[in-house]
């Protein structure tokens, strides 16, 4: 299962692209996705916080991720 992940702000610079793709053998939760992201991009774990959005909503971690989902990395926001 190929998951497309959008990355913004400093997370975009850390992963090196606006979009990255991760491949998983079986269904995963948001938390499992986070663990894999931190493994591949250790600098993500140095951020003040890193939320993960699923289809434009903040997630808690337990949500299951499917290939159709729009997943996005949300480092600390600083609008305004």
């Amino acid at each position, binding site marked *: 299962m190929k998951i497309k992940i959008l990355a913004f*702000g400093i997370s975009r610079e850390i992963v090196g692209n606006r979009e990255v793709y991760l491949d998983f053998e079986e269904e995963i939760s948001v938390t499992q996705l986070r663990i894999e992201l931190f493994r591949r991009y250790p600098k993500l774990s140095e951020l003040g916080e890193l939320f993960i*959005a699923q289809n434009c909503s903040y997630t808690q971690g337990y949500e299951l991720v499917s290939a159709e989902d729009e997943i996005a990395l*949300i480092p600390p*926001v*600083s609008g305004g």
Partner: protein
Amino acid sequence: MDIFRLEPHIISKELPEEWLRKDAHGGHVFFEGTVRGINNNRRVLQLEFEAYESMVFAELMRISKIIREKIDVPSLLLLHRTGVVKPGELAVLAGASSPHRAEAFQACEMLMNELKRSVPIWKKEFFEGGEVWVSAHP
């Protein structure tokens, strides 16, 4: 009636007539956030704003619902720049319009607080001698 917009160019303060609804509401409160020329004792060259557009609008809808659960406020406004913004330029214009002054103040401030808390917009500050994503690190 709400107006939420991301603005890649200079924000115009000429607001749509239908938002102001001059005939109906007596009071309008606005917050204008301009880019400071000096921040943390450093000369700021420019800011660069990046937004996750579709989620910005989803979050603003959610926030507008939360505000209306607490405050009777007919109209909200949020215009936010994206891209490069220079010192002195408007980065954000928030507004709330209501027949009641206190509620317009409360709604506008709540909109700004929620914007800063959860709306996916990021700001990179370019100053003399460096650049930094604001608030990214603890």
